[in-house]
């Protein structure tokens, strides 16, 4: 035979068997190392079925053998791993993995293999390990939890993660639409059609590879033809429309506020070869929809009877879908077990396809729907008022041999005669639950419907309208009319269309009249061993009816407690098959009705979505923005060792071949001190302020006064936040009476510009000032060192750099070797120093020109670390090092820059608060270690009194500490309690290696106290 023993011939029955299968082609794939074959159209689940493989996985806790239960997103059992090495992906639902050539799949959660899984032993101990057992044990001895945990951790989890980084790519896409239709079943398509006809921009998404939903496997005709024909023609019409976008293999994963939807499009999963052509594996769509039509259908629920988890028990809808769609038989002989009419469709379809059916077992005593009659008429044996109470298995529970059937009456124990029926599969239906997930993600509330015995949408404050089975409308004609009306109505809301609709605009449908469903939440088993039988409610997490009852008995009575205590609904399927059944079981245990018990919260995503897709394009070298300065290329070519500062990458130092970082930094420092150095300071924030009130604004945002500054001059200023803490600093230059150029720290550039705007717009809207950030307009370089002037004078230009003409803290505009520049005489190193700014597109070239001009003067580029040491030698602070958001200017000894005259500036009032104004706060001081070679570690704390062991009272910490090649010893700055009154004291810094470093508190200026060097 074909090697697919359960594959049904194409031509049986009415010709629908294996509707989507391309039997002319074979696809090779493997499962647990075994080579198998299937056809295009197959999923891994249908192909496994076809190959006669029923046992596909092991359950989470008891390692029970499990088979396929469903046919789609609700599948709890058939979780497999697909792919190898970097492309290995665990926990995929076999029911949704489309077969492709060479697909490699594996079962999970078993060792050494699926058949002989050691973990089955848990099943033997299952009485010892009911829900929540771990809260009651593993506590002795006290320290042992980590020991037990090790084993528990290894036993838990399902599949394994990939061992290599993911070679595939992902991306995001945004879209806006008038109407987003989620679900491409009959309801969704009908809604889309009428919405599109009304002129709306419509998107239709469905998680399946095909549109049509259950159309090919539900009863009923549209326009007197099989539903699929109508689907076919509708899809063609919609595809041809300019205003419609149809998407398959796309899950609507989440609904967020204001009708924002997250979609995940699986672009290459079904055909990995597409990736080679540049297609991303997944594409995450972010869609803003004016209106959403939720046509997500309904999910069938199983029935809770003893050993209902055995491979071979599957949903009735799945059974017929495997037959109709994939042409596989779920077994050799089946029993249908139901409490509603819909499962009769399964009985009919199976029979039509020649799959032997032993019995339809219906709990209802007198089912009377049209399908029931049709089944009876077709000669199908129906027993009523009966239930399947247990299954008998062979092959260690992996294979069903027969079922037990006994008379059933809700709420009472099973009595009467029990019959054994030979069969190897059971198709079960407990009714259908509207798929309300998306509806509930943001705001939708549900209500309990007695007819459906399930929750259906009630109200929402979002623009999301449920239709069809998702709205609890199961009758085909009602569903189509509801969907088409809704489509038109929401389109009208979205685009205000005036297109008139008549009744005839919608297709007419007919479906068999259904009888009433009878709720069945629990079917007790018969016989002495009743208690030992497991009635599974949540298959994946192995939650049984007894577990739910135990939780209730133990006082975990809120449904939320029960969920967490038993892990009900917390598995990868999020309880799609189990939630309502669990509530049903609980009605007994809690003596309460389902609506009173209530549901747990639905949360995104509807089905799990890959992390790779969430990261999208922002992966690898595009993870987080990188900003580059104009001479960036030069830095790279010259071996810069970069450090990230905010989004910028700045050279930390420039090691020469063989240099350590330390060597490089020392060399760079000495070149500034002795000759001349060049620093790329382009990242420095630059903001221009212009307007009649510019000076007034500056007086309010700085602690010191700027209105008195002369044109062409600069002044160092301190900015506080409203809590009185230092936030930023920099030199601001007056370009004209009403025009200033403010410098901020590199990290502060954007923040300060926003800060100024905020104050201007919200608090001082009467001030006339325009604020324009110009950081990016200018490349800016510091040229510092005794030879700085010589270098600049080496270059052609119209600026007089001489000491007399170009005073300290002043600024000139002109040309330097042709480039337009702004030159500032400011110094952060204490040396003779200028900063030269030129428009960014000249930055690289001017940088080269400066280096060339300095060649004979020993010029060297220096990085941020040399900059830091240079300023520390001079006792200059760095915001973020000496200050940390809890430090005031007075703490730092910068009282000279804090005006006492001004009535108000930002932070002034806060500085007066008791704790900030208190004496003996931590104050900035210098430190000289007793051993000059010893560099204190950054952040080391001084203690009030040295003790043998902690705790010790801490009196302050090192804020910056360096080896200073200039003074030939270590230097440090620190914030020490009452430090300024303790000059000369020796304090202790106990370090982690047991060593205690002693240091003398000194003034924080270590070099050129008089400031002579910068004034030459």
């Amino acid at each position, binding site marked *: 035979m074909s090697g697919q023993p359960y594959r049904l011939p194409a031509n049986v029955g009415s010709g629908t068997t294996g509707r989507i299968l391309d039997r002319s082609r074979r696809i090779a794939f493997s499962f647990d190392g075994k080579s198998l074959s299937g056809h295009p159209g197959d999923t891994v689940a249908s192909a496994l079925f076809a190959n006669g493989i029923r046992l596909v996985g092991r359950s989470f806790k008891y390692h029970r053998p499990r088979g396929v239960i469903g046919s789609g997103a609700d599948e709890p059992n058939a979780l497999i791993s697909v792919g190898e090495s970097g492309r290995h992906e665990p926990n995929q639902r076999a029911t949704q993995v489309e077969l492709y050539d060479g697909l490699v799949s594996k079962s999970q959660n078993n060792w050494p293999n699926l058949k002989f899984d050691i973990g089955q032993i848990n099943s033997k101990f299952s009485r010892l390990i009911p829900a929540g057992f771990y809260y009651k044990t593993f506590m002795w001895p006290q320290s042992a939890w980590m020991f037990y945990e090790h084993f528990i951790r290894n036993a838990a989890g399902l599949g394994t993660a990939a061992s290599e980084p993911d070679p595939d790519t992902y991306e995001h896409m945004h879209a806006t639409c008038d109407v987003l239709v989620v679900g491409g079943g009959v309801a969704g398509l009908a809604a889309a059609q009428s919405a599109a006809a009304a002129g709306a921009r419509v998107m239709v998404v469905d998680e399946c590879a095909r549109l049509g939903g259950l159309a090919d496997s539900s009863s009923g005709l549209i326009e007197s033809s099989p539903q699929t024909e109508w689907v076919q023609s509708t899809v063609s019409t919609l595809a041809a429309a300019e205003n*419609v976008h149809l998407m398959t293999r796309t899950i609507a994963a989440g609904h967020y506020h204001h009708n924002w939807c997250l979609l995940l499009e699986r672009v290459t999963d079904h055909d990995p070869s597409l990736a080679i052509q*540049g297609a991303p594996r997944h594409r995450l769509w972010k869609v803003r929809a004016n209106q959403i039509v939720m046509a997500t259908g309904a999910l069938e629920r199983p029935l809770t009877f003893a050993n209902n988890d055995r491979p071979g028990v599957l949903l009735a809808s799945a059974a017929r879908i495997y037959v109709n769609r994939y042409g596989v038989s779920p077994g050799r002989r089946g029993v249908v077990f139901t409490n509603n009419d819909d499962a009769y469709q399964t009985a009919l379809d199976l029979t039509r396809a020649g799959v032997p059916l032993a019995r339809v077992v219906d709990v209802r005593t007198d089912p009377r729907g049209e399908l029931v009659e049709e089944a009876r008429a077709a000669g199908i044996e129906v027993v009523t008022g009966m239930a399947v109470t247990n299954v008998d298995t062979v092959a260690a529970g992996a294979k069903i041999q027969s079922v037990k059937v006994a008379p059933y009456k809700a709420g009472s124990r099973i009595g009467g005669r029990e019959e054994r029926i030979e069969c190897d599969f059971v198709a079960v239906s407990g009714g259908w639950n509207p798929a309300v997930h998306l509806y509930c993600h943001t705001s939708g509330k549900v209500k309990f419907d007695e007819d459906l015995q399930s929750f259906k949408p009630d109200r929402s404050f979002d623009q999301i309208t449920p239709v069809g089975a998702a709205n609890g409308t199961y009758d085909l004609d009602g569903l189509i009319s509801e969907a088409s009306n809704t489509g038109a109505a929401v389109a009208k809301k979205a685009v205000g269309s005036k297109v008139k609709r008549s009744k005839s605009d919608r297709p007419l449908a007919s479906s068999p009249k259904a009888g009433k469903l009878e709720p069945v939440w629990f079917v007790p088993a018969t016989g002495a061993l009743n208690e030992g039988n497991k009635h599974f409610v949540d298959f994946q997490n192995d939650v049984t009816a007894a577990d739910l009852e135990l939780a209730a008995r133990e006082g975990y009575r809120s449904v939320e407690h029960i969920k967490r205590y038993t892990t009900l609904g917390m598995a990868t399927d999020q309880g799609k098959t189990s939630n309502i059944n669990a509530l049903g079981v609980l009605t007994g245990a809690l003596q309460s009705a389902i609506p009173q018990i209530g549901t747990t919260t639905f949360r995104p995503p509807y089905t799990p979505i890959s992390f790779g897709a969430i990261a999208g394009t922002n992966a690898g070298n595009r993870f987080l923005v990188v900003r580059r300065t104009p001479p960036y290329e030069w830095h790279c070519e010259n071996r810069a060792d970069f450090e990230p500062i905010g989004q910028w990458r700045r050279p930390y130092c420039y090691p020469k071949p063989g240099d350590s970082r330390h060597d490089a930094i020392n060399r760079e420092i000495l070149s500034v001190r002795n000759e001349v150095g060049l620093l790329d300071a382009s990242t420095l924030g630059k903001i221009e302020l212009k307007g009649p009130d510019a000076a007034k604004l500056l007086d309010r945002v700085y602690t010191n006064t700027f209105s008195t500054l002369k044109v062409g001059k600069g002044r160092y200023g301190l900015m506080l936040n409203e809590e009185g803490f230092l936030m930023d600093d920099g030199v601001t230059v007056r370009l004209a009476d009403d025009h200033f150029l403010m410098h901020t720290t590199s990290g502060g550039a954007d923040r300060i510009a926003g800060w100024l705007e905020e104050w201007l717009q919200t608090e001082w809207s009467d001030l006339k000032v325009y604020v324009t950030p110009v950081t990016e307009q200018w490349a800016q370089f510091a040229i510092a060192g005794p030879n700085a002037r010589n270098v600049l004078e080496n270059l052609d230009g119209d600026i007089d750099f001489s000491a007399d003409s170009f005073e300290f803290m002043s600024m000139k505009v002109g040309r330097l070797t042709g480039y337009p520049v702004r030159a500032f005489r400011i110094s952060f190193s204490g040396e003779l120093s200028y900063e030269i700014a030129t428009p960014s597109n000249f930055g690289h070239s001017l940088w080269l020109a400066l280096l060339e001009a300095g060649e004979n003067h020993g010029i060297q580029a220096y990085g941020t670390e040399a900059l830091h040491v240079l300023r520390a030698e001079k006792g200059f602070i760095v915001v973020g090092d000496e200050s940390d958001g809890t430090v005031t200017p007075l703490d730092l000894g910068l009282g000279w820059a804090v005006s006492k005259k001004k009535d108000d500036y930002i932070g002034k009032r806060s500085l007066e608060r008791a704790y900030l104004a208190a004496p003996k706060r931590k104050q900035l001081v210098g430190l000289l270690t007793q051993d000059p070679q010893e560099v204190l570690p950054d952040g080391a704390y001084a203690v009030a009194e040295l003790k043998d062991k902690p705790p010790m009272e801490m009196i302050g910490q090192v804020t910056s500490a360096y080896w200073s090649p200039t003074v030939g010893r270590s230097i440090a700055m620190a914030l020490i309690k009452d430090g300024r009154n303790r000059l000369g004291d020796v304090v202790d810094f106990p370090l982690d290696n047991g060593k205690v470093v002693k240091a003398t508190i000194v003034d924080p200026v270590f070099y050129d106290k008089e400031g002579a060097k910068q004034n030459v």
Partner: protein
Amino acid sequence: MSDLQFRSALSHRRDEDLPMDLCVSLDEVSDRAMIDLRGSLDDPKFVAAATAALGVALPAQPRSSSVKGDITVLWMSVDQWLVTTPRGSEQALLSKLVKRLGNTFSFACDVSDARTIIRVSGGDARSVLMKGTSVDLQSPVVKPGWVRRLLFAEVAAACQFVHSDPDTFDVYVFRSYADYVWEWLLAVARKGARVQLYGKQEPPLV
């Protein structure tokens, strides 16, 4: 005096070969200079002076632009415009502006080098850009001349729809981000990753 060496933000990538399989064309537009202009539309003196100096009216409508000759004025905010003009002409234009504006409450500032312009064009330009921004570029309001500030690939940007023959967008990004945005575009613009949103399509399987 040496020759002035001008290096636009992406000049170092000019010699790189673009991948063959891009579905849009990408270019850097580096020959435009830019002036940031601030002032109030409620101040007739300002409006008159600016119009006279630029030779074109300031676009008052949000998200619009106006063009005359070499000069384009992009709306940036209710009191802010970005004037673009051929490189080399900006100093003259700026002086003209400053002179005309006189002592009105206004500010014209040369920001020619603060940004660069990346031109994205081709039939797929809209959908390629929509991978990086939530702004609906397929909306009917996106007509030639349309401008909008937006967040593109996590970066502050402005976008101008230049013309539709073929669809051509200029994306203005701050200079320091140019490489990042360029690489980002290369990553999302491959033919195999084309997205065609709306319009006729192959009917999906049923």
